[in-house]
């Protein structure tokens, strides 16, 4: 249970898809002019991520990873098909999106009207493929966790697009320097929001909980690198101070 809660909050706030890894930026910038459309796209992203990440987890577990084919018999245990993961993941996503579109159109025309136009857009949204690839890279261990990861990353993306759309609606009344209007100011606001989201970084590391699992996101790595560098520098400084004091 703790594992689930932790993954949930971590994917929403700390490893937020938009602010920490820049996934889905294209549609994030293009569809964030109005809050209502942003909500539609955000909901579609949550939905598709929650469906495709567990599916791709199954594919990865039973078909792609090193030794995954062992269930077919011992002679298959040596195969490693992970180089095929890009093509299989994207094919799964594209077909799933198509199927979801058909099913939703058939059974819930109301939902289709609000969600449907965004679904084809989503097949080529980097956030969706990124979700599956990060799921694979972080070696998420169970189907439940994979579903949790897809859902919570989707919610994180939804929050991000909702926030930027609200800000962009307001900013129309502000006096922005002309060359920055539109795209430029959106980039800078997103950067500032990302700085804000970085403050969530300490959320899960305090107290006596289970230590946060190791992961290889670039952001995390950069943070660690910077930390060690800072420590080195301070160590260096204290050494020099000591030397000066001795003199």
């Amino acid at each position, binding site marked *: 249970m703790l594992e689930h809660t932790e993954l949930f909050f971590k994917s929403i706030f700390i490893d937020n898809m938009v*602010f*920490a*890894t*820049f*996934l*889905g*930026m*294209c549609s994030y*910038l*293009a569809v964030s002019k109005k809050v209502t459309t942003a909500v539609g796209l955000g909901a579609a992203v949550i939905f598709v991520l929650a469906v495709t990440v567990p599916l791709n987890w199954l594919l990865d577990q039973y078909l792609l990873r090193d030794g995954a084919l062992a269930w077919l018999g011992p002679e298959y245990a040596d195969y490693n098909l992970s*180089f*095929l*993961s*890009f*093509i299989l993941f*994207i*094919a799964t996503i*594209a*077909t799933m999106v198509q199927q979801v579109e058909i099913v939703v159109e058939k059974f819930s025309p109301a939902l289709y009207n609000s969600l449907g136009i965004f679904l*084809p857009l989503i*097949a*080529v*949204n*980097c956030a*969706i*493929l*990124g979700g599956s*690839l*990060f799921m694979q*890279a972080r070696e998420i261990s169970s189907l439940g966790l994979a579903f949790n990861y897809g859902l919570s990353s989707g919610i994180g993306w939804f929050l991000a697009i909702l926030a930027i759309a609200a800000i962009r609606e307001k*900013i*129309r009344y502000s006096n922005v*320097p*002309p*060359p*920055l*209007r*539109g*795209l*430029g*100011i959106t*980039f*800078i606001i*997103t*950067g*500032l929001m*990302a*700085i804000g989201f*970085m403050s969530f970084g300490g959320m899960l590391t305090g107290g006596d909980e289970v230590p946060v699992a190791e992961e*290889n996101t*670039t*952001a995390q790595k*950069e*943070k660690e*690198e*910077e930390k060690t*560098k800072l420590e*080195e*520098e301070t160590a*260096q400084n204290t050494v020099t101070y000591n030397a000066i004091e001795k003199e």
Partner: protein
Amino acid sequence: MAILSKKDSKLILDPLADNNPITIQVLGICSALAITAELKASIVMALSVVFVMGLGNVVISLLRNVIPSKIRIIVQLVVVAALVIVVDQVLKAYAYTLSKTLAVFVGLIITNCIIMGRFEAFALGNGVKRSFLDGIGNAAGYGIILIIVGFFRELLGSGTLLGYAVLGNPIEKTGLYAIGYENNGFMLLSPMALIVVGILIWVQRSRNPALIEEN
């Protein structure tokens, strides 16, 4: 350019500045920004995209009369995915550490909107040679932004370029560090990539007021 007609060379030169895929068309930001903390990774990423886009545009343009329009998105995705697998395997074989830094972002070239955008907008309706030039041009426009951002982030963030300490040694206090210069570690964190691109857009649009958008 004597080899290329004026119209053809425009295909290459336009995306480099006034029709740049990142700053003007707003395409392909997804996989671009996260890897620009080092210049080397940016250059490799730029080259990979040039390769995938040049060849991808050629393949799509060759197939353009055969693809049924209803399933064209899937066909396009499969073509890109196949090319990206080639890039990924080559990187893993010859530059393993670098491919670890780039991690999933090589895979994300598949969903790079520039590629799909150019397939849809250009390769499906034009001949092989022009599609090839268009692909190279757009990928180069994308690469240039990547390299500029990578240049500034690495220079200001860690004081190095391609791993060489160009500003002197921060620990031994040589070069610029002797007069009290400090690295700005913040440049290495992800938010600064967005802000650097924002500033690039600002500079570009101040130089060419025709590009300024309505609010």
